[in-house]
């Protein structure tokens, strides 16, 4: 009945579904906007319905309209309603719509937190999957913070499908909520070894994304990735890993050396082009990072270049493109190997594909030599003539100039040729690189003195034919810029001009007014230079006619420029007019002013270094941060801000910077002028004029109509006398005809040889000033101060986090209790914002949700309590974190009690682990068998279970044992005093365990091992004072043994003046504050029945033999002083540390063949249980269990001097115990096994 009703409803309501909408739009092609607005209205009515099916239909239609460009963000709330539907069908529609139109600033998103959490935790896998996918598109900071924990929970899901998605989503969470990175990272790292390849791949993907932006933080993961690379066959994942290594190698050259071998193997073996290509890329990165020291260095480059050649020669355009791309990377460091393939690159220049041509151009840039530059440029010029489209032509032009000008014209021997090239380039239509050409012209003119006269001649011609260059097409191009250079060169080097007067005339006559302002200004200024030169020479020759002629010419033409719209032109022109009239006046009086005039333009111009301006030291008393004008009043700005925010929510940020117009006062103008003068003084190209020039009287000039000669030329003509490349054509043998290609080639080769040999013999034609340029005194060109060049808002900046440091107590993902209050509030806000009808519906729902929440949190709390009791919270994430935190905080309080004032930082240790991994390979045989890295996944899981069982067993037995020992000790000692020591004991053990677990990043993935018991021994004892000590090898940078001495006052009176006199032996030394004194005094007093701890560090020269230290301790009690003899024993195991143990290093070690020394012992009838044996052997953390299966265990320890000790323990049910040892050091191994044997026998 109900069904039928619903059905009827649906049929009535569904007047238009998505298909109808699409069809409708297609049928209304002429009036599409009208039709769509009509549909929008329908959709709006549909959204007002209570029926969720109708709403879902409407939202689906909206999603389609969104694709067509219609804004649908107004329906945000309805979309959320559809998302919250219990039906998967509708939920999916809602999430799709949300992922298309929501973004991080969408306000309705704050309503979704609880709903998404519910979906994430849904029992239906696809509900969670849809939520994860959607979330990846629209997650914002708040959602990331509130849901981080839920996503983390999904990492432990039993379904790979969800794990995979959760892993990927983590990346987005980190981006929006960087604080989550550190607490979540260990979990993410675990996923690298997930049994499901998809999850593994996702984890690799995320870490690669993270590492790409901040590679240095992920260096410590290199061993894990290396293992994955050598064992995986998933090409997708391999590509990612290899790309990641490409980013890591620049930071750690040793890593590169390790990589070369497996990568070259892959290059040889793989058939997948994509993988091959990435391998080559990373090999290139490696080769760049290691400059020397590789034996088969050249072989690798040759291999890469060879393979790339194959790619480039392939008919597939994609491979060709990528080949060229990779080739250009090799070019930077190994240009010679690439130059051998010049033929191939030139061939690619003719390719019909523009992308390939551009890549080939990039390559050409690096392939140029002195011999080939003319040929290559010639070739490019012909390409330019043929090229269609200005974009490619501009690119060519730019490349030609880059090729020629690189390294201050390193490859150019004939500068006349280069000037000709530049002049030729001026004739290219519609180029955007006029400025570039102009710069080159000026640069060459300044740097190459020998070619200056030629250049000046050419520039004079250019000026004379300006109308040809600045043709009708010039409006859209910047070619007029070359006139800037031409005018400047002619003016600056006017003494080299053949006919200065003619040049002056052509400058004045041309359509100066039609040029851009800054070029006009240069024209005007250089007219003066020319004028000064003409006057000076004319005066010498007493050519009054000439003087009069030029003066009149200028006075006649300049007034047009005085009335120019451009301020600069106006100012300069009026200045010059006055100078000229002054000169005229002087001449009338018969004075000679030529020399004075020349003074204005005195001085040589030199090239200036690119950073010179930046390096100019700040003069004393100049504060650049001080406002030049009074800052605009703040209140005004604030008002403005509020106003804007109210009306335009997303006001364009640039509009904020709009400044109001203001009329400068006289004072301000003066100030501006000063600033400008200062600027001009610093401008190297600005010719400084003596101050007295400005004092000429102001004088009005009439503007006159000047007849402008219109010489309109549509086609660029050959200009007589203008240089052309034709005369250099003989140099190269390139011809484009295909038929004669072969013959021509041979011939051209001969010619080439002939030309090049003569090239070599002939000394360079021109001397070039190749200095970097002038710099202010004391500044150096090399020191640059570029820091992080990423934009401020790049989220990856915030993710530059050190992941190797242990977690601090405050670093937790926000837990539920945290957001409980918050979500309630948002629910209220939600309710407010709703219209009344929807509100009631919503309220009841949110109430339900709240109830559920409360119940859940109660349950969670109960669970927490339970698991705390059982102290086995392996699958509870929050608890795990809490545990970790407790441990770290314990550690925090523990450190710092060091008497010697030295503490180890964990960071160094992690770095040390990496060092260990990297150095290991260098000493071992280069080709590691790949199979050794593989670990059968199935058996892995099996082992884990076993170890789990083992662990619980050992825990039980341990507690029993502890009780036993306690009882025994109680018997022998007084109860009250014993208590104190017992209290202090667990503290030490927890610290030891802490160091052992926290410091080693790789260990965390291994099955949990039993924690080592402290190595507690008696130091000395009398009726008043008792001293116990433990030792631990502090592996790391300092390589020392830490001795922790516990003093216990057994009497009821305070002990003071504790002094330990412990002279060093030959091979064992204490790290002392005062190296000259043998005595260590403890600054505290030991109160009655109090116990205290002190730590001492020792370094050993030889760690392969046991050591002893003798000394005495003196103390005072009640005025009387006593002495105690002290004996510190250091068996060799004290110098071992199991902290760096991990299964992979262990197997690697065994397979590497480094462990040459062997030793073993057997105990025929051992009384201890297997777990007790393990406890004994790992006492003090000197050895660590790598793997333990049934009744056998493998252990590992590393000495402070880097010797490896591997031990295999076998226990048979008959009580027979065999211990086999392998090590890199024989003495160490035999001494260690002797010690272990005695301890095991003793405890029996």
């Amino acid at each position: 009945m109900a069904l039928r009703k619903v059905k009827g409803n649906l049929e009535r309501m569904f007047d238009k579904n998505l298909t109808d909408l699409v069809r409708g739009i297609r049928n209304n092609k002429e009036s599409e906007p009208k039709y769509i607005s009509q549909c929008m209205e329908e959709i709006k009515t549909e959204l007002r319905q209570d029926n969720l099916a109708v709403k879902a239909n409407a939202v689906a239609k909206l999603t389609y309209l969104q694709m067509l460009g219609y804004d649908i963000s107004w329906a945000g709330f309805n979309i959320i309603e559809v998302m919250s539907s219990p039906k998967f069908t509708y939920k999916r529609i809602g999430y799709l719509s949300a992922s298309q139109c929501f973004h991080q600033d969408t306000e309705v998103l704050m309503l979704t937190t609880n709903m998404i959490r519910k979906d994430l935790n849904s029992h239906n896998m696809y509900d969670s999957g849809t939520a994860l996918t959607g979330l990846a598109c629209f997650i914002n900071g708040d959602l990331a913070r509130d849901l981080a924990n839920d996503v983390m929970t999904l990492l432990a899901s039993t379904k790979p499908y969800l794990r995979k998605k959760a892993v990927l989503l983590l990346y987005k969470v980190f981006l929006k909520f960087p604080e989550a990175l550190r607490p979540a990272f260990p979990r993410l790292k675990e996923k690298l070894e997930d049994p499901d390849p998809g999850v593994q791949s996702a984890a690799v993907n995320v870490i690669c994304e993270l590492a790409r932006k901040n590679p240095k933080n992920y260096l410590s993961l290199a061993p894990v990735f290396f293992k994955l690379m050598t064992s995986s066959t998933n090409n997708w994942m391999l590509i990612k890993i290899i790309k990641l290594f490409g980013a890591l190698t620049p930071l750690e050259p040793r890593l590169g050396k390790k990589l070369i071998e497996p990568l070259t193997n892959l290059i040889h073996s793989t058939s997948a082009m994509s993988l091959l290509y990435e391998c080559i890329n990373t090999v290139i990165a490696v080769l760049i990072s290691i400059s020397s020291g590789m034996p088969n260095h050249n072989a690798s480059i040759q291999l890469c270049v060879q393979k790339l050649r194959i790619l480039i020669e392939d008919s597939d355009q994609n491979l060709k493109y990528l080949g060229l791309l990779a080739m250009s990377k090799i070019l930077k460091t190994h240009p010679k190997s690439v130059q051998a393939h010049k033929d191939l690159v030139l061939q690619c220049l003719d390719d019909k594909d523009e992308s390939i041509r551009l890549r080939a151009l990039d390559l050409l840039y690096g392939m140029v030599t002195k011999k080939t530059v003319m040929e290559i440029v010639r070739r490019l010029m012909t390409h330019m003539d043929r090229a269609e489209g200005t974009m490619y032509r501009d690119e060519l032009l730019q490349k030609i100039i880059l090729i020629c000008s690189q390294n201050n014209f390193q490859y150019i021997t004939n500068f006349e040729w280069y000037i000709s090239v530049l002049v030729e380039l001026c004739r290219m239509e519609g180029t955007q690189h006029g400025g570039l050409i102009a710069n080159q012209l000026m640069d060459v003119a300044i740097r190459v003195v020998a070619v200056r006269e030629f250049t000046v001649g050419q520039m004079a011609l250019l000026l004379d034919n300006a109308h040809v260059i600045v043709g009708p097409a010039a409006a859209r191009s910047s070619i007029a810029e070359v006139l800037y250079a031409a005018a400047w060169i002619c003016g600056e080097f006017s003494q080299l001009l053949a006919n200065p007067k003619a040049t002056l005339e052509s400058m004045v006559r041309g359509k100066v007014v039609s040029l851009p302002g800054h070029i006009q200004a240069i024209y005007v200024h250089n007219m003066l230079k020319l004028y000064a030169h003409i006057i000076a020479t004319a005066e010498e020759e007493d050519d009054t006619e000439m003087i009069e002629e030029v003066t009149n010419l200028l006075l006649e033409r300049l007034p047009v420029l005085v009335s120019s719209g451009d301020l600069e032109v106006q100012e300069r022109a009026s200045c010059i007019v006055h100078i000229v009239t002054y000169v005229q006046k002087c001449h009338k009086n018969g004075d000679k002013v030529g020399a004075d005039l020349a003074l204005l333009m005195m001085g040589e111009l030199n090239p200036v270094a690119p950073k010179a301006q930046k390096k100019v030291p700040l003069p004393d008393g100049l504060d650049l941060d001080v406002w030049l004008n009074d800052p605009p009043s703040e209140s005004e700005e604030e008002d403005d801000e509020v106003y804007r925010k109210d009306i335009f929510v997303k006001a364009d940020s640039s509009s904020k910077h709009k400044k109001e117009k203001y009329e400068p006062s006289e004072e301000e103008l003066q100030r501006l002028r000063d600033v400008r003068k200062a600027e001009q003084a610093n401008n190297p190209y600005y010719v400084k004029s003596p101050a007295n020039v400005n004092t000429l009287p102001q004088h009005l000039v009439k503007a006159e109509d000047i007849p402008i000669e219109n010489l309109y030329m549509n086609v660029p003509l050959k200009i007589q006398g203008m240089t052309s490349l034709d005369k250099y054509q003989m140099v190269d043998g390139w011809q484009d005809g295909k038929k004669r290609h072969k013959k021509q080639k041979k011939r051209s080769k001969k010619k080439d040889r002939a030309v090049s040999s003569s090239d070599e013999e002939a000394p360079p034609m021109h001397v070039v000033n190749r200095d970097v340029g002038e710099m202010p005194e004391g500044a150096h060109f090399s020191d640059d101060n570029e820091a992080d060049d990423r934009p401020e808002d790049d989220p990856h900046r915030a993710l530059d986090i050190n992941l190797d440091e242990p977690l601090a107590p405050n670093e937790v993902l926000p837990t539920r209790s945290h957001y409980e209050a918050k979500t309630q509030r948002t629910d209220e806000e939600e309710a407010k914002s709703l219209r009344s009808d929807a509100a009631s519906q919503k309220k009841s729902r949110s109430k339900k949700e709240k109830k559920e929440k409360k119940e859940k949190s109660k349950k969670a709390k109960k669970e927490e309590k339970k698991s705390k009791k059982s102290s086995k919270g392996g699958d509870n994430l929050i608890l795990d974190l809490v545990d970790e935190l407790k441990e770290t905080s314990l550690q925090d309080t523990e450190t710092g009690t060091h008497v010697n004032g030295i503490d180890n930082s964990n960071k160094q240790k992690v770095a040390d682990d990496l060092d260990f991994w990297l150095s290991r390979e260098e000493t071992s045989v280069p080709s590691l068998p790949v199979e050794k890295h593989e670990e059968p996944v199935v058996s892995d899981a099996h082992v884990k279970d076993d170890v789990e069982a083992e662990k619980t067993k050992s825990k039980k037995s341990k507690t029993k044992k502890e009780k036993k020992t306690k009882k025994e000790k109680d018997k022998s000692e007084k109860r009250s005093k014993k208590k104190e020591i017992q209290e202090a004991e667990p503290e030490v053990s927890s610290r030891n365990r802490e160091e052992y677990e926290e410091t080693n990043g790789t260990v965390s993935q291994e099955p949990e091992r039993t924690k080592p018991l402290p190595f507690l021994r008696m130091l000395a004892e009398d009726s008043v004072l008792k001293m116990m000590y433990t030792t631990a090898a502090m592996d790391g940078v300092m390589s020392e043994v830490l001795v922790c001495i516990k003093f216990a006052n057994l009497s009821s009176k305070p002990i003071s003046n504790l002094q330990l006199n412990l002279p060093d032996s030959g091979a064992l030394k204490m790290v002392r504050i005062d190296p000259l004194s043998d005595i260590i005094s403890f600054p505290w007093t030991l109160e009655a029945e109090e116990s205290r701890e002190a730590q001492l560090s020792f370094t050993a020269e030889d760690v392969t033999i046991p050591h002893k230290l003798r000394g005495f301790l003196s103390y005072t009690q009640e005025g009387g002083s006593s002495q105690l003899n002290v004996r510190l024993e250091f068996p060799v195991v004290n110098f071992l540390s199991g902290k760096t143990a991990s299964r992979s290093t262990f197997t690697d070690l065994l397979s590497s063949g480094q462990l040459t020394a062997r030793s073993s012992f057997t105990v025929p009838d051992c009384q201890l249980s297997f777990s007790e044996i393990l406890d004994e052997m790992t006492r003090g953390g000197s050895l660590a269990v790598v793997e333990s299966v049934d009744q056998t265990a493998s252990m590992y320890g590393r000495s402070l001097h880097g010797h490896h000790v591997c031990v295999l323990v076998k226990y048979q049910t008959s009580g027979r115990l065999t211990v086999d040892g392998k090590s890199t050091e024989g003495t160490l191994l035999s001494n260690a096994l002797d010690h272990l044997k005695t301890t095991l026998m003793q405890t029996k």
Partner: protein
Amino acid sequence: MIKAILVFNNHGKPRLSKFYQYFNEEMQQQIIKETFQLVSKRDDNVCNFLEGGSLIGGADYKLIYRHYATLYFVFCVDSSESELGILDLIQVFVETLDKCFENVCELDLIFHVDKVHYILNELVMGGMVLETNMTEIITRIDDQNKLEKQETWLRVTFGYSQSSKIHSKGEDFSQQRTSSKI
């Protein structure tokens, strides 16, 4: 990272647009238009990569596309993605579409853009490659379709059924398919 996935036809009409970075609707349309102009003027026998447009990306981004019959499939990716890998991903995407729609044609994409989105969501999530194994992808899509069918027993509109194709087939994509490289 993949920044955007666009599908449009030979006339530049959008058939699917997925942006993994936020752009407003107007900007999205401009990007589609610009991308179409960049891609459409290229011959079919030139390479499938081109430097990113001015609106989307910048120097680090590339457009990687394939042209099948009447449709262009364009992925805008940054340098962390392998170019050839993405080409294969496009291939996987199209082949999956082909399997799900039984000889897919432009009309399928026109009328079932939502389904195409769901399929894409199984390949790429939030701009990162989620799955490349076609069998796995198809299993997931089939599972979800089954789930949907169970719910919409009324089969009013939403249940996509293979038997009730309403329209005639256009040109077949598979004709122009090149072999996969991975």
